[in-house]
């Protein structure tokens, strides 16, 4: 992700600003940010747009920073990191990933999830949306579950064919355990165990061929 971030920034610096950012977004940024910061943010946003990445979230990060009265450097950093994360998410999830999947993947990466976890998730659920699994993954990490364990949990659940409602229920159950004082790793282990016990064959996404050979067993 760091190399993708450097690549994105370098590209942004050498590219002459062109009017590729959405006009509405540009107007909003200029209305809310100082001219200097707006210019610099727009350079990064346009570079991402030129690469076909969804820029809505990048603009939102800039506006959020302005609302929170963040320093200019922090705003630019947040926007750049979002762009870099989107690029890395696309490398990990594949070029056919939809915008919502890229945004969810970028969030997971920014939360500390390694890129190969996104790739594993895509392999575990080769068809069907990854938005909810990625949102659940980010949430677990944000609540203190170590990123490797959170990744392996969601990948295992996806590999077992758990549907999105089951993943969301698992998230809620884990969250309830954590609120009740259980350590996040243990709460997550229990949450996965309960999900795997409850996921029946007719609830499943078609498992990938490798999982079918293994009988869909959890790690």
């Amino acid at each position, binding site marked *: 992700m760091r190399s993708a971030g450097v690549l994105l920034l370098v590209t942004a610096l050498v590219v002459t600003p062109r009017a590729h950012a959405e006009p509405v977004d540009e107007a909003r940024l200029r209305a809310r940010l100082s001219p200097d910061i707006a210019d610099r943010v727009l350079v990064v946003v346009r570079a991402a747009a030129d690469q076909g990445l969804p820029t809505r979230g990048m603009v939102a990060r800039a506006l959020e920073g302005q609302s929170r009265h963040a320093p200019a450097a922090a705003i630019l950093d947040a926007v750049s990191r979002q762009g870099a994360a989107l690029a890395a998410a696309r490398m990990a999830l594949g070029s056919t990933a939809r915008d919502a999947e890229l945004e969810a993947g970028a969030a997971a990466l920014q939360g500390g999830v390694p890129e190969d976890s996104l790739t594993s998730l895509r392999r575990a659920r080769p068809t069907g949306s990854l938005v909810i699994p990625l949102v659940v993954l980010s949430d677990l990490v944000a609540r203190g579950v170590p990123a490797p364990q959170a990744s392996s949990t969601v990948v295992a659940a996806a590999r077992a064919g758990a549907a999105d409602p089951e993943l969301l229920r698992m998230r809620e159950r884990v969250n*309830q355990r954590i609120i009740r004082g259980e350590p996040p790793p243990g709460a997550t282990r229990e949450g996965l165990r309960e999900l795997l016990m409850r996921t029946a064959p007719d609830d499943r996404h078609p498992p990938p061929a490798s999982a079918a050979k293994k009988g869909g067993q959890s790690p």
Partner: protein
Amino acid sequence: MDDAQLVARTRAGDPAAFEELVARHHAACLRYAAHLLGDRTEAEDVVQETWVRAYRSLDGYQERSQFRSWLFRILVNRCRTSFGRTRRWRAVPSGETPVVNDRAASVELQSQLGHALTGLDEPHREAFLLKFGEELSYDEIAHLTGVSVPALKMRVKRARDRVKEQWKELDSDGRG
């Protein structure tokens, strides 16, 4: 205004009438589903689905039957579908009360009753909750479930004995 009148008003296009039906019967639906499924989150999903189906099929409600019975028929079927979809069973010797191998006491339903129900399979749990919890007659339960009255009486008896045994144990453990 009784339930049949509220249904009639709903059919005539009054959404407040349907909301009153929900206000009257939602709590009973949720407690049944939560105790049957052992999972509060799943129960809320099933109950919501039940009300949506009830709303869509109100034209099929006949005023000679109790609305609550008609609603519970939908609920019992939704619960059966959800229960069957998300549990695994182990084979048990015939003659024993079948045991669920899913540790159904969930994070949400950490009540003494929730624990006491843990040892029952779905048919026994269903019969027990409809008879003891909802206090329906055997004829009503037979109509809802499609199970004969003699079979229901057997299930209720076995379930009741098991639940009481568990309840007493939990009492002596100081839980609940």
